[in-house]
């Protein structure tokens, strides 16, 4: 935990510096007759972030914040596993949306999570895996008229559009 706090503060400090540099693409000073330049607001905010990171590191060094005193690991084995499953599966799911679209990904994801991790009965898994894409389609595409990404499965929906829209 202690090491994690330092690493995060240093990472965020580097990020702040990057933002300051990036903001400086626009004028950060006072422009006569126009007021503060376009980059001034983010530039000074990033400078504020940098100061905060310094402050966090100072408190870390003096062991003033709870994480800097904590002996516990930042993530134990279980936490890491849970995190990897959650974040990893989301990463794969969003990636697959580009390829095969939401209506294929939603049932796959539900089957993976409910059956693969939760070990729920097939009946529960299947009913949700069928109901959710249908409900999503009716809600977004029909009611809200928002087309969700479909990737390569787009042509399969043409007949549905013809029927329903």
């Amino acid at each position, binding site marked *: 935990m202690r090491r994690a706090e330092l690493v995060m503060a240093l990472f965020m400090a580097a990020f702040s510096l990057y933002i300051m540099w990036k903001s400086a693409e*626009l004028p950060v000073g006072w422009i006569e007759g126009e007021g503060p330049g376009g980059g001034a607001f983010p530039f000074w905010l990033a400078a504020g972030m940098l100061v905060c990171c310094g402050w966090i590191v100072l408190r870390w060094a003096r062991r003033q914040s709870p*994480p800097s005193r904590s002996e516990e690991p930042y993530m134990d084995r279980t936490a890491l596993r849970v*995190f990897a499953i959650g*974040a990893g599966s989301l990463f794969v799911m969003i990636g697959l949306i580009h390829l095969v679209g939401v209506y294929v990904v939603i049932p796959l994801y539900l089957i993976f*999570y*409910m059956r693969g991790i939760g070990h729920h009965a097939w009946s529960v898994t299947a009913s949700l895996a069928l109901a959710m894409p249908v409900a999503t389609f009716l809600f977004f595409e029909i009611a809200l008229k928002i087309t969700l990404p479909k990737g390569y499965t787009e042509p399969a929906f043409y007949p549905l559009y013809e029927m329903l829209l």
Partner: protein
Amino acid sequence: MEILGLLLEGFAVALEPINLALIVAGCIAGLFIGAMPGLGSVNGVAILLPMTFLVPPTSAIIFLGSLYYGAMYGGAISSIMLGIPGASTAVATTFDGRPMALQGKADRALVAAATASFVGGTISVVLFTLFAPPLADFALAFGPPEEFALLLLAFATFIGLGGDDIPKTFFSIFIGLMFSAVGLDIVSGNPRLIFFDLPGFYHGINFLVLAIGIYGIGEILWTVETTRGEMVVSRAAVTIRGVVRALADLRHNIRSMLMGSFLGYFVGILPAAGATPGSLMAYGVARTMSKNPETYGKGNVDGVVAPESANNAASTGSMLPMLTLGIPGSPTTAILLGGMVIWGLEPGPLLFIEHKEFVWGLIASLYAANLFALLINIAFIPAFLMVLRMPFTILAPVIFILCVVGGYAPTQDMHDVWLMLIFGVMGYLLRKLDYPLAPAVLAIVLGPLAEASVRQSLIMAHGSFGIFFERPISAIIMAIAIGLFAWPLFIAIRRRLSPGNAD
């Protein structure tokens, strides 16, 4: 009397069949979301906001307002039955609610929480009705310096009352404001902070992307990890006779209820404070006022009643600055405020003149939502207890999917979905290190206004920061804000000077 007329018109809006149905739906959704451990009003509003594009703005805010209320009621359920707060707003309810449940008095605790919520909600809506119109009138005179001073006050509240690590709170505010600056510069129109030249950054970072990332994805990752599926639900036998007896017993707790309601309301009004500090303060005051403070933490009904009335009162209170000043009073109202911008309404005092039906429809719906939430809550306690047993392996994927689809809907750009995932993961990692994240969400919503008001003020004053202190209203607000910023410092110094603590 004018207010009464407007309120009646509001009721005409709120009681339209579709709006009434949405009130009931919002209350039920809110109660369920509130009852789920770890999820509260802010998560519900963030995840479901994209779904409200279906209905007109007035109906949308009525739904979300009812959800906000319902979640405040529902939060108590998991606090009492699981000992895990349904949301941070219900933390104080666990102190005495959980011991009551363990003593077999779960039904009394649940009824006390629901009734206190109702009293807090009702008193605060009445106060709201009386305070809102004059405040909106007053706020019409505000210019950019006053707006900026108010924004500063909002952020100062986080520092002064938030109770979190101070540099981390500042960091969270700065990073949220910085994200709001991504996109096109409001004055010159030049693109700025276009990371890696990705075109997706030209339209800026939608606040919903950050809000859903943090409150949807990050929060679920956090909850799944911290609960690890091991939860012990207390047993509660809820009978009609038990409910009636519990209600009758509550006459001894009226004082705490009233105290919690008024305190919660006024803390809620403070920009950014919201229901969490409100309920914790009410708990503290109730204990201080009590004749036998030693019974607190061991199942004292007053210890449930005070924070529960306060958190509902605060949730109404936090809508006051949102509607009248355009400055949200809590993280949830920050998201509602962002929603109003998406619906094409400009939050602020003009709302009371230009969109009367919206404002008064919302106010009237709060009266109705309060009543429905109470009835549904007490009638369906067994159903909510079942929610607590719902495994996270069903809940988590459903919420993740809602987040992904909901994150895509507002801008219809996959870029935002990826960004949301990054925010969610980073939010989770930061939260583990005690970084408070609500200030960042508030900041990204308020960022454009903050930048515009500070730049306009500086242009008005030819670059002098003195303008914020020369105008009377702005000077007073600035003074309060600076006081709040300095408050933790004051506490630290006093602690160091007090005898017996000299280390």
